[in-house]
C-alpha cells in the first residue's frame, strides 16, 4: 500500500497541478468571447435572433441593458446576442461585470477583439457609423439595423411576448 502511495502520489500531484494550471489559464478567456472578423458571419447567421451592440462608454446603452436585465429575469430563453464594441482590453473588466448581471439560457455575449473596432463595424454593416446602441434582427438572411435605445415594447413585439 505504501509502495502504491509512493508511486502514485507524484503522478497524482502532476495530474492535479496540470489541471490547476490549465483551468487558471482557461478561466481568463472563458468569461468573455472576443469577436473577430472570422466569426461575424456565424453570429449573424441565425434567423430571428436579436443582436444588440453596446459599449461601456455609452450611457444610453445602459438604459437598454437595464431593461434587458429585467426582461431576461422573466424570459430567460430570449434568443439574444450581446456584443460590446469595446476593443480596448482595459475596458473588459467593466464589460464582464455587465455580462455577469445578465442571466439568459440562450444569451450569448461577445466583445470586439483588441483594436478591431473599425474592421468589425464594417464587417457587420458598412453603413453603420458606430452610433450606439445599435441592434440587428436577421430576417431572411438580411441584417435589419436599428440605431438608438430599444424599448421593452420593441423586444416584446419582436419575440411575440405578452404586452406589459
Amino acid at each position, binding site marked *: 500500500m505504501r509502495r*502504491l502511495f509512493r*508511486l*502514485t502520489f507524484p*503522478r*497524482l500531484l*502532476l*495530474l492535479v*497541478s*496540470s*489541471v490547476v*494550471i*490549465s483551468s487558471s*489559464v*482557461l478561466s*481568463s478567456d472563458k468569461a468573455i468571447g472576443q469577436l473577430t472578423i472570422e466569426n461575424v458571419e456565424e453570429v449573424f447567421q441565425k434567423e430571428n435572433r436579436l443582436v444588440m451592440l453596446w*459599449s*461601456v*462608454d*455609452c*450611457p*444610453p*446603452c445602459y438604459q437598454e441593458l437595464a431593461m434587458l436585465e429585467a426582461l431576461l429575469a422573466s424570459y430567460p430563453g430570449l434568443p439574444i446576442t450581446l456584443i460590446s464594441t469595446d*476593443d*480596448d482590453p482595459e475596458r473588459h473588466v*467593466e464589460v464582464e461585470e455587465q455580462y455577469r448581471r445578465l442571466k439568459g439560457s440562450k444569451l450569448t455575449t461577445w466583445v470586439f477583439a483588441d*483594436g*478591431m*473596432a*473599425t*474592421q468589425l*463595424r*464594417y*464587417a457587420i454593416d*458598412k*453603413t453603420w*457609423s*458606430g*452610433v*450606439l*446602441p*445599435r441592434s440587428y434582427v436577421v430576417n431572411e438572411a438580411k441584417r435589419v439595423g436599428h*440605431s*438608438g*435605445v430599444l424599448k421593452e415594447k420593441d423586444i416584446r413585439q419582436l419575440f411575440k411576448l405578452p404586452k406589459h
Partner: protein
Amino acid sequence: MIKTQVCFHRVTNVVGLVLLFFSVMLTQSVASTAATTTAVCDGSNIACAKTVTASVSPAGRIWFAWTASDYLYVNYSDDRGKTFSRPVSVNTTPEKIAAGGEKRPKVVVDSAGNVYVSWIKKLPQKWTSDIRFSWLKVGEDVFSAPITVNDDKEIAGHSFNEMIVSDIDEVTIVWLDGRNSKAAKKRGEPHVGSSIYWAVIKPSFLKTNVSVEKRQIQNAAYVNGNCVCCRLALTPVESTEGGSELVVMWRHIFGDNIRDHALGVLGEPLQRVSFEQWKIDGCPHHGPSISAQNKRIHMSWFNDGPSASGLFYAYTDNLGETVSPVFHFSKSTDSPAHPSVITGGDGKLKLAWQTFDGVQSSIQVMTSVRGEQWSDARVVAQFTGATDYPFLLPHLDGDLLLWHKPGHALTLYEVSE
C-alpha cells in the same frame, strides 16, 4: 493486484503528461501574447500610446501629449516630426487618465513658450471624472502640481475637454459637464443631455504667490441640452469690434432627440448650424470640427439623417445666423469619420477625414481658398490595422497630418501640396 497497480500508474502517467503538455502549451501561448504586448509597450514610448494629441506653438515647435500607465507625458519636435525630445512626465502621482477616442489630453503653448496641459481624470464611479490642468513655465523642467478645473466638487461627469490659448496668452478650457444633470436628477426633475462649462486662465494665474493647491479656477456655465458623448470644437474668431472671441461648436439635442449641431460665442446665445435631422436616442460618438478664417467660420461634421448620411461642410460669416449651402463631401458607404478642418499656415483651408474600405483605412485631404469651392480629395495616408483619429496641424512651414497608429513609430505626414 500488481497488474492493476501497473495499469493505474500507466494511466495516471499518461493522463498527467498529456494534461501537463497542454497546460504548458496554454501557459506559453498566453504568456507570449502578454510578452509581445508589454515588451514593446513598456514605459513612456509614444509609439505605444492609444491616442496622441498635438499642437503647434507660435514658434513652430510641435508638442505632443499622450498617456502611459497612469502618467501623462509630453515631448516636442523642432524638425516636423523627424526627431523628438525626451518625454517629460506631467503628473508625479499616478492617476487614471482618459485617453480613448475624443477623451484625450490636450496640450497648448502660449507666445512666451509656457506649456499648458489639460486632461480627464477618471473617478471610480462610472462616467464620473474631473478636468485637470497643469503647466510648465518657460525655463523650468517640472510641470506644476495638477489642479482640478471643475469647481463643483461633485462626483459627476466632466469630460471632452478642449483647450485653446489666445494671442494675449489667456488659456480657455471648455468641457462637457454633468453637474446640472446630476442636480436635476436629485431634485427629481428631467434634464436633457449634458451641459457645457468653461473657464479662462489668465497669465497672472501662473505668477501669483498662492500655492498651486490653493489656486481656484472659476467656472462659467454656457448651455444645457447637448449630446453627452461627442467632442466639442473650439476656435478663436475675429470679432466685429476687431478683437477676438471664442466660438464653440457641438452636437446639440434639439426637440425630440434631433442631434444636430449648434454654434455660439462662449456666453452668447447658440445658433443651430446643421439641419440633417438625425433623430437618435443614443450616442452618435461623432463630434464636429471648426476653424476660423478672419470672421468666417468653417465647420465640418458627421450626421446620419433620414435623407443624407456622411460628412458635411459649411461656413458661416455671421456666427451661425446664416449658413452657406452644405457640401456633403463623403457618403456613409465610405465609412467616413472624424473630419478635421484647419486654416493652414498659408491661410488656406484643408479638410481631412478618415475612410475605411473593408481592408485599409485612408486619410483623404481636400483644399480650398475660402470654402466656396474645394479641390478633389486626395489620399495622403493609408494603413491596415488599428489607428487613432486624424488631426491636421496648421504650420507656417507647411501643414501636417497627425495620424497615429498604436504600436508603430509616430509619423507626421506632409499635406501641403
